[in-house]
């Protein structure tokens, strides 16, 4: 590997993106360390999904740069970013509903494997990894919502990412499903994948993440260890609410 392996895997450098008069992200700067699980939290409309779209290449910022593995990727299209090692899931699952589960994951695996046969094999391994083998031949459109989230993760993992962006993959799950999801994310991180996750369920996120960044009105309000953030006055006022202070 190059000398870049020592620096942060991702650097968002003073990024601003506005839609007309609405500033979705303002002067956002953050570093993501190799191998960490970073939580991205904040109220609805704070700009979390916009930031994901900027990192994965759906949007290009008006100002600022995004560096991945030390290289400037600000202007690269999404497909190229995927090949470089950035994978994502979507807040509202975007499965390929006319294809079955295996085919969905094979699409992702083709980013890493030259032939369809090799990709299919890798896809089957990925399905084992996320424990979805029992649904291999089910049509994606017929999956339950939790299964769809799992499929999203499988598809993203099949691209062989070094950075994985998870957009609310634990939201709307039952406690036992969420627990299984947490286990999966831990295993992914242990395998050496850096994870950034947007999540709302504080009880689930805070124990899981190494560090958290709080976005508010498009800007970084605070960042640090989960234990520090839950006591931060600004964070409590903007996001967690007074109830949390009492606790």
């Amino acid at each position: 590997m190059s000398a870049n392996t020592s620096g942060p895997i991702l650097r968002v450098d003073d990024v601003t993106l506005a839609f007309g008069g609405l500033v979705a992200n303002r002067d956002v700067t953050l570093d993501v360390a190799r191998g960490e699980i970073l939580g991205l939290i904040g109220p609805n409309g704070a700009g979390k999904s916009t930031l994901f779209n900027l990192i994965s290449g759906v949007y290009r910022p008006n100002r600022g740069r995004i560096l991945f593995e030390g290289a400037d990727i600000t202007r690269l299209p999404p497909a190229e970013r995927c090949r470089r090692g950035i994978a994502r899931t979507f807040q509202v699952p975007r499965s390929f509903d006319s294809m079955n589960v295996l085919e969905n994951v094979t699409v992702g695996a083709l980013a890493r494997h030259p032939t369809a046969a090799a990709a299919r094999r890798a896809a089957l391994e990925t399905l084992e990894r996320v424990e979805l083998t029992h649904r291999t031949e089910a049509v994606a459109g017929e999956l339950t919502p939790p299964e769809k989230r799992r499929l999203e993760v499988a598809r993203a993992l099949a691209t062989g990412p070094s950075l994985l962006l998870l957009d609310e993959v634990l939201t709307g799950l039952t406690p036992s499903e969420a627990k299984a999801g947490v286990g999966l994310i831990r295993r992914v991180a242990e395998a050496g994948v850096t994870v950034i996750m947007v999540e709302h369920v504080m009880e689930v996120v805070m124990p899981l993440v190494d560090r958290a960044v709080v976005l508010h009105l498009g800007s970084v309000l605070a960042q640090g260890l989960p234990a520090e953030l839950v006591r931060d006055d600004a964070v409590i006022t903007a996001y967690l609410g007074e109830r949390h202070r009492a606790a």
Partner: protein
Amino acid sequence: MAGTTITAAPTGSLPLDESARRFTAKRRRSLYVGAVVFAALAALPYAIRDVYLQNVLVLTLLYAALSQSWNILGGYCGQISLGHALYFGIGAYATSILFVNYGITPWAGLGLGAVIAALVALAIGWPCFRLGGHYFSIATIVIAEAGLLLVQNWDFVGGAMGVQWPFNPDAWATLQFAQDKVPYVHLALGLFVATWLVTYGVAESRWGYGWRAVKDDPAAAQSLGVEVFRSKMAAAAISAFFTAIGGGLYAAYVSYIDPESVMSFRFSLLFALPAVLGGVGTLWGALVGAVILIPITEISRSYLGGTGSGIDLIFYGALVMIVSLARPEGVLSLFKRTRKARNAEI
């Protein structure tokens, strides 16, 4: 990927190998089915000696091939073109002009027309694939209509008068068979088999997966490394290539073409309909759709008399409405459902 073995569910490696094996068996089975169906179709004109019915057979197979070509772009890649008459016309005119004006064998015209059509498809795709959904379809209609007007006013290709093929003795070199229609059946079948094999091969390739992903969700596709724009361009070029070959064969078959008879909007519809009827984005949908659609329209047309250009269009419209209301996935999905239901009972 290093940590996968530690975390794999304790199911052993059986499901993985089992899945791979079942997949290969399924692929091989559809090749066998193809071989049997194609052999039967090749033998069919020897059983049907009636020239009128042979004509229906030629048209059915030709439309199956054309719809299979359309299906590559419309069914697999999800880009609904309603302007494929343009590529059909390019093939028909390239073949006719080379042969009639310059005496060059139609085989060369088929190849040249196919290449020109593919290039035109790329030139159209360059701006139009930036348009989403319905706007793309509307653009294809408009461009094909513009092509029709262009040819009507272009004296070099015969203008509105069209091109009449000379009468020659039957020969494979000139694709002229006035006495016997069987060779045309085999030519049309050959084109269908070619498009079927391309579809079969490409469906299980990087391109095929990319196309289906683009069709279902372009945003998700690009996030997974699929080059969305390039995928559409490739599908359009391949689709246009085979549509033009169909146009060339059709010109040789009918021996006379004019702009209206090969480039009108009606053809664009007729290429889409069999695939839509049979099952969009499936290997057999186009053939099933053509087998239902073409004989019914040909026979009803001869009984209703004249060319009656309105009546068959009403019929197509009604058919599409029935299919989209009752079975949007096409006729083929009927069989899939029953098999699944049967499995569920066991």
